[in-house]
């Protein structure tokens, strides 16, 4: 959770707290209980929006049947998982899947030989995937360089915290599993620090797959899109890619990326935090 979201959550919950303090002003009868109910619903809604906003939002639009027009000739369907365009009676439905290839771009804890094997097999795996797919798709890697010193300071802070955790666990005579876990995390952080020291540039990435399906009706296009998305998820599973269908506001952001990209890292990081 980023700082801005934390501030939003804090202020929104303060209003709810004031609401609890204001309850006695509503009297002791039925209005009091209505007030309690409203407060509980608001609290639940805010907390749900904090953790699962995309799912909650698409559930609301699905139930109410709300669709959006993000630009002329385009529509986002009520399930918030596709952008549809109609051209000359043909419907084009576009969907997005997250596809973060961490194994290939971030060599975290695996042994160098294992890492090398993955790097060697990657081009061949990619070609096999492309050869076996018989519909259009795009694999996007949106990358941005990060401030080297800032990242180094952050990693050193994390390492110090893990060292503190380790010493506390040793004082408390924690079991070997806990100690191994903390040591593993420390090794990962140290590996990242070493790589930065060796001159490697830290980058932030958002990787996603975009696919477009066609149909003579909106439903046919959406059905075809579902099938294509499933096939892509299956095909990319061979590359150890964590894939999930993108819904809600992130779909809107990715749709806009076709026409303009965010020009700063901060703007990019505020857009993706749940699904990507």
């Amino acid at each position, binding site marked *: 959770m980023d700082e801005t979201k934390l501030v939003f959550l804090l202020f929104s919950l303060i209003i709810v707290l004031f609401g609890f303090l*204001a309850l006695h002003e509503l009297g002791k009868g039925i209005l009091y209980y209505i007030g309690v109910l409203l407060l509980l619903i608001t609290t639940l809604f805010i907390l749900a929006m904090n953790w699962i906003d995309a799912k909650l939002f698409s559930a609301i639009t699905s139930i109410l049947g*709300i669709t959006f027009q*993000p630009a002329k000739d385009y529509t986002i369907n009520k399930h918030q998982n596709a952008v549809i365009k109609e*051209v000359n009676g043909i419907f084009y439905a576009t969907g997005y899947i997250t596809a973060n290839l961490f194994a290939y771009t971030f060599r975290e804890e695996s042994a160098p030989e294992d890492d090398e094997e993955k790097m*060697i097999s990657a081009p061949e795996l990619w*070609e096999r995937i492309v050869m076996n*797919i018989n519909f259009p798709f795009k694999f996007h890697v949106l990358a941005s360089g990060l401030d080297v010193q800032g990242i180094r300071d952050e990693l050193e802070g994390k390492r110090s915290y893990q060292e503190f955790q380790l010493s506390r666990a040793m004082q408390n005579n924690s079991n070997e599993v806990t100690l191994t876990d903390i040591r593993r995390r420390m090794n990962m952080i140290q590996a990242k620090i070493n790589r930065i020291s060796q001159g490697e540039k830290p980058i932030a990435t958002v990787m996603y797959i975009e696919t477009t399906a066609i149909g003579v009706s909106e439903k046919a296009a959406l059905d075809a899109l579902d099938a294509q998305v499933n096939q892509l998820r299956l095909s990319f599973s061979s590359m150890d890619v964590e894939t999930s269908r993108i819904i809600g506001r992130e779909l809107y952001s990715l749709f806009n990326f076709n026409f303009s990209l965010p020009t*700063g890292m901060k703007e990019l990081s505020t857009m993706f935090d749940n699904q990507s």
Partner: protein
Amino acid sequence: MASYVGMFVGLILASAVLMGIVMFVPSLLLPSYIKIILFFISLVLDAMAFTSRYYSYLIGPLLKHRKKHVILSNENPYWLAQSGDTILRKSGENFIATVYISIPLYRSATEMEDDEKLDFSQQISRLVGLSKDPVRYTSELYVMNKDSYIQKLKERITMTENEEADLQSKDAPKNELDRVRGKLAMWRNMLDSIGKGFSFELSTYMTVSATGVKEYEASSLAQQKAKELMSGVGSIFGVPPSIITGADLLRFVEPEYLLPISTVTEQISKNIQEQVI
């Protein structure tokens, strides 16, 4: 300040004011049934304030339209710059220019030794870390545009059908009629085989954007960033990248260029025919 911050501050203040009225105005001046209404509105505004963190772009249009089809924008999502090499769009008071750069990579893993595969993967890793600005690298598989070829075949078929009808009406000799029918069968078979499946092309490109107060400012900044990236790509892969211009740009932006219309229609009608049979 981001627009969502302004919206949040406005909504949270309105919510706090209403809650303050409920808390501090005596019940003699404000009856309880009005207080519960204000209490309800305050909580709705509070929930909206939190939601504005990610959905500020929706709240305004949703309240304005109050329909099931909410229009966020009624304008074209972009327009092409006069030079034809940049996509432009307006964002608030600023313009955002986006440039697409083609990376001509024609290497296949099947022709590579293990060392070369490792080198290639490392080159891709270096490519991804090329710029401090957000850059998007894309590999796109799209349907080859056979529209003009299909149109030409359809025209040939119509012409040959006319020729056949002419010959029939003139009671032409059988061998002449057979020749035209053979030609017609040939064109139809060709159209059938083309319509049976798509042919695909794979392109690799990167995208970079820049913001400016004026159109030309945004365009020139984006072009400058593109040139820097192009020299980086050239040094990594040893290939000459180029800025994508004109109609070629649309293939990376519009879905109907990803799946060209005649090619697609031919495929759909083939599928329907197969289903009917």
